[in-house]
């Protein structure tokens, strides 16, 4: 197409937090005035970091950002706002102790004779919220309203700032359909006025409803920018999770009947979590690997959190070996033979300054209780056993775990849970940030464990991996189970078809 004058341009943006964590690598992004531009990608793709760099929350390491052709370098959100970039964040970022009206106008209060003109603030706030069909008492404190209303107020604030660029980071996750429609109406109006809007969401349907173009990021890298109308949903999902459409039809069957013969170990019946999954039926047998697939926010990690007793049930029951059971905390789950390697290895998994040995025995010690201590000799024996079994590459079991590579850290976490001899092992993104060789080893360990009779729940955004080890797959979308695939039904094309929205797909 023709050369275009972009409203906001970012080129060669890189940002790393430590030398090991590179959040953005040479990313570019171009936003036109009067367009709604979706920024998409899976967890860890770099969306949030890009937004933080654009708004001045974080400083970029390298690269160039221009607004209307002039280079900008916002260092604080304050500067970002001043030059015309306004944003709404995923979590409500307002002050609960201030009134609704003040939350909209704080920092840019209308003044009369040098003092804040409260009357005008209240009147203006009422008029503004009317546009959103929100009829509320603007003089009341913000925290007297629901999160959805708070989110609408945050959006109203950002829209009213008369910015050139409006960034909406997952603004719709707490809104009802009606409220979403209202928001879209306003976004269209702002677009008509020439504002450029960046829209981050994990609801694919919303992307197709409202956006003009899409930019996809993956693993901190730029994948591409596309016209929304010309990009089928399945292809979009493929770009987000890193598979070409051509590869989709090639099915991979790794399913072996024999995995699937054990008794049911755990069963969820019509389980709903507070604000998470809805009405879920799920069962897991001994000796099978069950894959949970879906985009970020689809409910895949939330299921594991509920089973492990981290999040509480709103309704429904959990049964273990046919007996109804109440998991009030994680220790109860551990004692019932459940193990969970969480998604975030660094913050929820390893204890960096402890040795490998101490990291391995942590869960076992918790299971046994604090007073039945594990002797040093016993601990060393267990550590040696798993270092050998899982081929953990380390000079010694006394090495601090933070000095190991990501893959070996993951193996230590795995060893920690295997030491408790669980019946059910849940792995959330066990291979993220791990080199291909170690990845294959971990997958092999998972399959071997299942063969020995352990039930495994495997959560990953890499469908490839799931195809290789899962005998059964549950597909989730918007906190609901949308499909269950078994054996030969499992194929990349089928999975992506259901992730993208099933038969509604055009």
């Amino acid at each position, binding site marked *: 197409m023709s050369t275009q004058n972009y409203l906001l341009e970012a080129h060669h943006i890189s940002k790393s937090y430590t030398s090991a964590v590179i959040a953005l690598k040479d990313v570019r992004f171009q936003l036109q005035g009067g367009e709604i531009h979706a920024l998409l990608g899976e967890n860890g793709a770099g969306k949030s970091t890009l937004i933080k760099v654009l708004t001045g*929350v974080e400083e970029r390491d390298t690269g160039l950002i221009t607004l209307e052709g002039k280079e900008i370098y916002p260092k*604080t*959100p*304050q500067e*970002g*706002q*001043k030059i015309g970039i306004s*944003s709404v*964040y995923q979590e*409500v*970022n*307002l*002050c*609960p*102790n*201030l009134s609704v009206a*003040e939350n909209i106008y*704080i*920092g840019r*209060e209308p003044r009369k004779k040098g*003092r*804040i003109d409260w009357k005008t603030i209240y009147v203006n706030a009422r008029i503004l919220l009317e546009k959103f*069909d*929100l*009829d*509320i*008492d603007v003089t*009341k*404190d913000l*925290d*007297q*309203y*629901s999160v959805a*209303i708070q989110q609408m107020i945050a959006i109203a*604030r950002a829209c009213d700032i008369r910015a050139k660029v409006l960034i909406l980071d997952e603004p719709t996750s707490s809104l009802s359909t009606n409220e979403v429609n209202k928001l879209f109406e306003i976004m269209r109006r702002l677009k008509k006025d020439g504002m450029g809007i960046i829209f981050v969401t994990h609801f694919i349907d919303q992307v197709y409803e409202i956006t003009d173009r899409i930019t996809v990021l993956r693993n901190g890298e730029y994948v591409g920018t596309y016209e929304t109308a010309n990009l089928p949903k399945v292809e979009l999902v493929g770009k987000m999770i890193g598979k070409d459409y051509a590869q989709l039809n090639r099915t991979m069957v790794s399913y072996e009947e024999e995995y699937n013969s054990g008794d049911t170990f755990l069963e969820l019946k019509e389980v709903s979590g507070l604000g998470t999954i809805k009405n879920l039926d799920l069962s897991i047998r001994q000796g099978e690997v069950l894959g949970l697939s879906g985009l970020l926010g689809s409910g895949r990690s939330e299921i594991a959190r509920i089973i492990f007793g981290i999040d509480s049930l709103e309704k429904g029951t959990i049964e273990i070996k046919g007996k109804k059971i109440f998991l009030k905390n994680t220790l109860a789950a551990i004692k019932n033979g459940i193990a969970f390697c969480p998604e975030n290895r660094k913050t929820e998994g390893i204890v960096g300054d402890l040795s490998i040995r101490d990291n391995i025995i942590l869960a076992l010690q918790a299971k046994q209780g604090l007073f039945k201590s594990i002797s040093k000799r016993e601990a060393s024996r267990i550590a040696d056993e798993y270092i050998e079994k899982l081929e953990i590459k380390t000079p010694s079991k006394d090495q601090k775990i933070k000095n190991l590579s990501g893959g070996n850290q993951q193996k230590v976490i795995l060893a920690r849970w295997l030491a408790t001899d669980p019946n059910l092992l849940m792995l959330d993104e066990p291979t993220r940030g791990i080199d291909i060789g170690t990845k294959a080893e971990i997958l092999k360990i998972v399959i071997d464990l299942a063969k020995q009779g352990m039930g495994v729940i495997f959560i990953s955004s890499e469908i490839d991996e799931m195809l290789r080890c899962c005998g059964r797959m549950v597909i989730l979308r918007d906190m609901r189970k949308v499909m269950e695939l078994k054996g030969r039904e499992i194929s990349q094309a089928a999975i992506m078809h259901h992730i993208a929205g099933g038969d509604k797909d055009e």
Partner: protein
Amino acid sequence: MKSRIKAKGEISFSNVSLLITIILFLSLFIGGSLRYDRFFSLSTFFNLFNDNAYLIIAAVGTTFVLLTGGIDISIASTIAFTCVLSASLLRGGVPAVVVIPIVLSIGLGLGLGMGSIIHYFKLQPFIVTLAGQFLMRGLCAVISTESIPISNEFYKAAALNKILIGRAKIYYYVFITFIVIGGAYYILKYTKFGRSVYALGGNEQSAVLMGLPVARTKIAVYGINSFCAALAGVIFSFYTLAGYSLQNIGLELDAISSAVIGGTLLTGGVGTVIGTTIGVLIQGIIQTIVTYENLNTWWTKVTIAALLCIFIIIQRIISIKAEKKKGK
């Protein structure tokens, strides 16, 4: 289709707190009046201000810090230092017009310094202001461990000049307190800075993301507090006409407890200077009643302890209720 969405709590937390404080003050005043003959008078009311003028100023300053969710335990030492330094300079022949600006600037500087350390090094305000407390108390003793009397004419005039309304008297220096209360009220309600103070205490992360000047605000509240402490020190030296290094030990806690009784939340974001002022007056009136009862003055502390306990529990119950409502 459009229907008004009701707020969940009918009355806001800060209003309830302030209301309870006012009712408590009035009932103490009425109770005292019923029990003692000469209690009910303008004189009793004015004396609350005459005797607590400095504490009100200190507590108003502390309210700024508490509103941001911070804490400052250095102010009693700052007051003592101000008194000792003033007395020592005045004894050396330095005129009052020079002494007062000097001690006020030292207070302001100390506060801005502590605020900067707290903000830029991300340190706990408790520990930084504890260092400030030791520093100022230590410097008092360096200047003099003896009590230094003040015989300066200006100070004497300030200590003794008063207005008579009927038989009730009100000292000139109390008007400084009124100006501080009024000024603080205006700043907190009608200026960008004041509203940033509340926002900061409500949610610091949000305040940053809404583009408010967080650094400036945070440093300024400690500056204001120490400035108020120095000003309270000046008034305290009018009141006592002496400077002594062991004066007012523990006064920072009186200031904090007044603010809490007045409805300020230690977690920040909620509170008013009017509430704090009434909080000080409540402590004053309890003191008065204890005197009338001819009890050991330490009974004041015992009563305050009970009151504080009741107040924080009531505050907690209100906020738990509010949270529960929100959950539904």
